[in-house]
Structures are given as structure tokens and as C-alpha cells.
């Protein structure tokens, strides 16, 4: 029962988020500004991610997908 109660409480919390977002749509002018875009120019940022992927051991959790051995 405590688990079910916790689940209901958790979902009620989510409901609260759904019903009254703490940042109202009319307060999102700054967030809608293109300078706040994480990937403002996909073709350009994809290329830079490829540059790193080909020269570093780490990969993933970025934006690049696609092929090529990158072994040059």
C-alpha cells in the first residue's frame, strides 16, 4: 500500500505540473528567442560533432548520427 500511495502522490505531483505550469506560455518570450536554441544551425553543429567523434574515444549523448570510419 505505501508503494501505491507513493505512486499516486508522484502522479498527483505530475498532475500539478500539467495543470499549472510554473512558467506560463506568455512568460516564454526569452526561451523562444533563437539565441536560446541548443542547435541553432544543425548542419554546422553536426559537422563539429563529427570532427570530435573521429578524433576522440568518447561518443554519444550529442547530436551527430551517421556513418564514416573517421579513421583519417
Amino acid at each position, binding site marked *: 500500500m505505501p508503494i501505491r500511495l507513493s505512486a499516486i502522490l508522484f502522479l498527483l505531483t505530475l498532475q500539478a505540473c500539467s495543470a499549472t505550469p*510554473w512558467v506560463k506560455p506568455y512568460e516564454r518570450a526569452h526561451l523562444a528567442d533563437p539565441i536560446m536554441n541548443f542547435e541553432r544551425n544543425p548542419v554546422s553543429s553536426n559537422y563539429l560533432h563529427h570532427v570530435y567523434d573521429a578524433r576522440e*574515444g568518447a561518443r554519444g*549523448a550529442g547530436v551527430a548520427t551517421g*556513418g564514416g570510419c573517421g579513421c583519417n
Partner: protein
Amino acid sequence: MYYSRPVTRSCYALLLLLLFTAFQSHAEVLPEDRADVLYHRFSGGGVTISGPSILVRKKFNEKVSATVNHYVDNVSSASIDVITTASPYTENRKENSISVNFLEDKTLMSMGYTRSIENDFDASTLSLNLSQTLFGELTTFSMGYAEGDNIVGRRGDANFKENANTRSYRLSLSQIITKDLLMVLAFETMTDQGFLNNPYRSVRYLNNLVPIGYSYQPEVYPNTRTSHAIALRARYYLPYRAALSGGYRLFTDTWGINAHTFELGYTLPFRKDWLFDFSYRFYTQDKADFYSDLFQTADEFIFLARDKELSTFTSQTLGAGVSLEFKKNGTGLIKRGTLNFNYDLILFDYEDFRDLTVNATPGTEPLYSFNAGVIRLFLSIWY
């Protein structure tokens, strides 16, 4: 049983109802129609890679859009690996991709296919992505899957043909924190299976029977690899219309590589039409378990590598960019456009990869380092 079944059923019904309504989303939107023509150039460490990339994205109606991309790498390589164990070469890589976005009942789905062809490597990648906004559009949840099939060849050896398969599983959560702060949490697991070596690279081992003191043998990699990466990125709107960004990524894999990436960025509009970007990136990684700059004997271990990409090293990137917007609020075919130039200087410093162009007692050669310049010049049109 402590509770009666109807109560239990009611609980489940309530849970389902809450779950359903909590995840009621608001409408997603299709990406904007745009076209980009980019010239890219990487130059450093004896390697020059340049070429165009052209991207076109078009909506067919309110529910379907498509993106196509054509990308070319023209490679001229005399890198440290090439000049110490092989001959300089030139080659060409072409990559074409298409993706289709479907907007259906508040869910945005994307399917993509990419094909990359060069004379010794053929890669096909299929990707699927699903994203949905939740909680009054404060949250965007995305998940994706990609599968790549690679055929590995070797120049000058028509009989050499190996296969490798890559799978990737991605999850990301984008969250509005305040009216000025956005955060994204991303997680990706990748698995590889097959021939994962670079077919041209060799390891060196001590050999007193030759004057130089060492000899070479081909690398041997494991034929499986699993990696995990988790990244947290944030973007903050400053009081005077500028944006500050920061990010951190933690990476780990079954080859023993652990890496950390830190990113900082600053975007500053200037007057009506100009936009400046400044960035700094710091990357550091540990070597793979089977990496060594100099093995003690031939076949010292089952797996052997001397790829500098698997060594212990750091890289730092200093970036700057400028963008000029034109035909703002334009009418007719073109709504607006930007002309953009970005330059990134990358400094690579290796901690256990030595420069074999210098003659010295094996294992005492200077550590290798190089700088690279990356140019991105592109025109973007929204229509």
C-alpha cells in the same frame, strides 16, 4: 490479502487515469523549412579535410516534412600515423541522408537513413526518433534508436572485407526550469560488434635485432564494445539579450576509456542583424586497457592498440563565430537568411603517445601534440 480486489482495481484505474492525463501533451511542431549550404575545412596534424554540406528541409503539409543532406569530405592525409607506418594519401567520402518527420496526434516521429561511401568504408545507418512535449510544454521527452551496418575494406587489398555493426539507444529530457533557463539531460548507450580495428594502424614493440630498436605489428582490437554517455546541458538568457550555455558529459566504455567533456558558450546579438558566438571546450580521456605506445614484445597481449584516439590525452577548443541576418521578415519565396562564419582552434596534447618522427631511444621520444583549425562558412535560408 489485506485489501479487497475492488480497492486494488480502483487503485490501478486511478493510477492509469492519472498517468494518462499527466502525459497529455500539447501539440508538437514540425521543424522550419530551411536550406543550408556549408563549406567545412579541418586542417591540422598533417591532415586536411574539406568539402561542402548541403541541407534542405521542407514541409509537405502540417503533418509531414522531409530533410535531405549531402555531405562530402575531401581528405589529404600525411598524419603522424601515416608518415611513420605508411604513405600519404588522398581520398574522398560522400554521405547522403534523408529523414522524414511525422506529426501525428501530438507526437513527433522521425525516421532517417544515412549512407556513407568511401573507397575503403561503406556505412549505412537507419535511425528512429520519437519526441513529445509534456506538462504544459515545460518538458520534452525524446527517445531514439539507430542501427549502422559497416563494411570495412583496405586500400590495395581487394580481398580484405570485414563487417561491423553499431547500435545506439538514446533518451533525452528537455526541461524549462525558469523563464530564462533551459536544461537538457541526455543519455546514450552504444554497442559495436565486428571488425572495430583501423585496418591500417600498427602497434610497435621493442626489438633489439633492428637498428631502430622497435618493430611493428598490426593492431588487434576486441570485436565488441559497449559505451555509455550521459550529458547535462543548460542555457541561460541574460538580462541584456544574450545567452550563456554550459554542459558536461561523462563517458565510459568496456574498453576502459573514461572521458569528461566540459563546454561553455556565450551568444551575443549586436545591433539588429549581427550575432556573435564564443565557446570553450575541454575534453580529457584515459587510455583504453589494451593501449600502449610501446609493447615489450611482439604479441605481448591478446589485444593491442596504438591508436592515438585510444590514448590518454586532453583537447581544448576555442571557438568564435559571427552571423549576419538579412531579409528579416522578408516576403515572397525567402522569409529570411543568415550568412555565418565559425572558426575553432583545437589543441590536442597526448600524454602517452610519442612522436616517432624524432629519433631517440625507444620510449623516450617527445610526446606528440598538434593544433587544428576548423572552418565553417555557411549560408542559411528560411522559406
